[in-house]
């Protein structure tokens, strides 16, 4: 019976891929992508994750840290489906929603293939191996495992990588929000309202009704909806609308001030209630989106492949290889997950046999979110997609110039269509709103209004924007805090009191430095004539894949030291692919001769325009400086990844040649009391 079921699942998945393969040149329904993806996930989960669990990791009936160290708090055995939800909510953020939307400029096919096969063979393996390693070591962090199993230098590299990726991540996410909110009174009003709502919830949960988190969150969600509806009246009011209409630079500074203040406030006042709200909204909206796609089954308007695979794309520069694989990190393979998989989750696993569902299955689910985001973006008319995602510099300032430019790219859209679309979602203009969030919101609004009522397009659009902005703002707060703690750890070596996290001046200093660091890249992105996403998103992708390389090096070391060299390919395969992708992309971003692609070429081109007198000297000097900073950063990422791989390979060879004992530093075996 069971066997028949799995044959059936495999056949349905294969048939869906068949439909995708045979219908090139015709429009197909998004449902086929979903079916092909889910079929592949199920087969990967049933067979590959079981192979990893039984053969490679050797999961057995031993007691987990949650069982042995159960303290009713952080170490706490948790039912597998609840923990699956917890883990998924912790790993899925804005990344899997934005990356696939940007990569849709290549067409829907490359993104789909990379998301589905990348996750089964790479991303889910990475999450699972790190979860396994941490679970066998009482919940140690990635950095600690790197230090213990490979060496102290690797631990240091891992720390630097984490801090760098954090700064770039915060900058690029803040840029996404800035572009979604600029000149949008409806958006700004509803996002601003989330701050007093969260503060009110915080006071409620701590002072008025201590610990009553559920009722506070329910009231908070109701107030969010009120703010959303209210935003429409603000946008229509001639007196209120100008108060909430701001340009990109003002919003960027607002975000920096917000990030700085939020990260030094007590956690119960703003961060915790915000996190409850955004997690609640995240899970709800993702479920809603899945239901919407299944009901509407939108046709994919975007071609399977566009002409932009040659590297001339307006959304970001660079050819299909390596940039499709850099642009889509979260959803296919994301180094960041290694931090969650070695954070709270391993301390909550009840039985070792639950680990595949949580580690491997959790990542498959995030990949599914990425597929849905891709479907939502590719269900848009390509002309509309490029009118939102191409930078204003390329489109020109008017709907007429934009329609003409898009016609030259080979897609048709009329100026009237663009005006009508902007009006239907309650915005003055959607042109050049780069960053992925607005076009995803339009796609989601299409799907939602198709599934749940067509008259509410504007409300659905702003609902989607609020949903993304809500958890990006939470990430700004939490990320600035993480950066602050790491920086304080470094600063303690300079002057010991700076490392004291209870000392307010030190906190203010470290928070200010971290905010200034991501704020620098944010302002650079806002002022960038190419739209900012073009330079920052690839840097983010490279840094995220770099962290994934760290995680896979640690994973390979664990496998080799456990005496299972013959299975080391499970992590070496994705590692080799990531190295090829990251190093090629890093090299091209620094040295490519095309000024849209290479940082140094762009600096030279800017210098040329300066010399001709076509550019304000102050602006020109700034652009050149920014290019050099970006090039240096990409260079640092490449050096770190190469050094790390060399250190790891050295360690592997020592073990394989028998010059170092093949022993892992696991916690000793204790029999579990749970039935496995």
């Amino acid at each position, binding site marked *: 019976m069971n066997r028949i079921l799995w044959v059936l699942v495999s056949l349905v998945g294969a048939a869906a891929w068949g439909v995708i393969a045979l219908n090139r040149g015709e429009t197909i329904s998004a449902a086929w992508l979903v079916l092909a993806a889910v079929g592949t996930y199920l087969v990967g989960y049933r067979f590959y994750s079981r192979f990893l669990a039984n053969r490679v990791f050797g999961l057995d009936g031993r007691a987990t840290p949650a069982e042995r160290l159960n303290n*009713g708090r952080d170490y706490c055995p*948790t039912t597998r489906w609840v923990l699956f939800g917890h883990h998924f*909510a*912790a790993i899925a953020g804005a990344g899997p929603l934005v990356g696939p939307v940007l990569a849709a400029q290549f067409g829907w096919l490359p993104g789909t293939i990379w998301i589905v096969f990348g996750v089964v063979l790479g991303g889910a393996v990475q999450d699972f191996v790190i979860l396994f390693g941490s679970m066998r070591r009482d919940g140690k962090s990635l950095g600690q495992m790197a230090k213990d199993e490979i060496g102290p230098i690797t631990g240091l590299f891992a720390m630097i990588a984490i801090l760098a990726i954090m700064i770039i991540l915060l900058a690029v996410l803040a840029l996404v929000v800035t572009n979604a909110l600029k000149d949008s009174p409806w958006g700004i009003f509803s996002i601003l309202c989330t701050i007093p709502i969260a503060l009110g919830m915080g006071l409620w949960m701590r002072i008025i009704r*201590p610990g009553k988190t559920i009722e506070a969150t329910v009231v908070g969600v109701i107030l969010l909806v009120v703010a959303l509806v209210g935003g429409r009246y603000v946008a229509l009011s001639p007196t209120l609308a100008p108060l909430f209409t701001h340009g990109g630079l003002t919003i960027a500074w607002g975000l920096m001030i917000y990030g700085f203040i939020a990260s030094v406030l007590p956690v119960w006042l703003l961060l915790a209630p915000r996190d409850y709200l955004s997690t609640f909204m995240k899970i709800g909206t993702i479920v809603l989106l899945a239901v919407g796609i299944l009901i509407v089954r939108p046709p994919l308007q975007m071609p399977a492949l566009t002409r932009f695979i040659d590297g001339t794309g307006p959304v970001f520069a660079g050819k299909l290889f390596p940039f499709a694989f850099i642009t889509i990190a979260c959803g296919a393979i994301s180094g960041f997950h290694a931090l969650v998989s070695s954070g709270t989750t391993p301390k909550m696993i009840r039985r070792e046999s639950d680990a595949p569902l949580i580690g491997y299955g959790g990542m498959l689910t995030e990949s599914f979110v990425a597929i849905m985001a891709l479907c939502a973006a590719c269900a848009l008319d390509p002309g509309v997609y490029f009118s939102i995602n191409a930078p204003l510099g390329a489109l020109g300032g008017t709907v007429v110039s934009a329609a003409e430019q898009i016609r030259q790219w080979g897609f048709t859209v009329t100026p009237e269509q663009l005006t009508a679309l902007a009006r239907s979602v309650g915005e003055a203009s959607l042109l050049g709103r780069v960053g992925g969030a607005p076009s995803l919101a339009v796609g989601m609004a299409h799907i939602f209004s198709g599934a749940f009522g067509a008259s509410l397009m504007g409300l659905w659009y702003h609902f989607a924007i609020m949903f993304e902005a809500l958890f990006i703002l939470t*990430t700004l707060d*939490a990320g600035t*805090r993480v950066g602050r703690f790491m920086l304080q750890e470094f600063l303690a070596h300079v002057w010991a009191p700076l490392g004291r996290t209870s000392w307010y001046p030190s906190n203010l200093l470290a928070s200010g430095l971290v905010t200034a660091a991501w704020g620098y890249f944010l302002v650079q992105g806002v002022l960038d004539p190419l739209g900012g996403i073009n330079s920052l998103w690839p840097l983010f992708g490279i840094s995220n894949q770099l962290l994934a390389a760290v995680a896979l090096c640690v994973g390979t070391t664990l496998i080799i030291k456990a005496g299972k060299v013959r299975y080391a390919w499970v992590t070496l395969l994705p590692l080799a692919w990531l190295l090829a992708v990251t190093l090629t992309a890093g090299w091209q971003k620094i040295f490519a001769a095309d000024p849209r692609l290479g940082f140094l070429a762009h600096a030279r081109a800017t210098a040329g325009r300066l010399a001709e007198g076509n550019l304000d000297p102050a602006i020109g000097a700034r652009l050149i400086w920014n290019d050099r900073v970006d090039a240096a950063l990409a260079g640092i990422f490449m050096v770190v990844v190469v050094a790390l791989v060399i250190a790891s390979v050295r360690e592997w060879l020592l073990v394989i040649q028998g010059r170092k004992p093949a022993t892992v530093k696991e916690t000793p075996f204790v029999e579990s009391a749970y039935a496995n």
Partner: protein
Amino acid sequence: MRTEPGRQGGRTGRPEAGRWGRFLSGFKRIVGMPDYPGYLEHMAERHPGCAVLSEREFFEAQVNARYGNGASRCC
């Protein structure tokens, strides 16, 4: 027969908490909220007779532990 602490109460099975109570407990853990009834049950089961934190103290301790050194979260 081996005992199965998870099946007989504890924070995972919780038959006595009722369907709604179990749902709330699961929901709180998914979102990452402190689960006070679950904590009381753990203390009663594993450390009977020990002093327990008040709901407010427990909330504060949990929120600080989860967010105090920066929540690990993702892109």
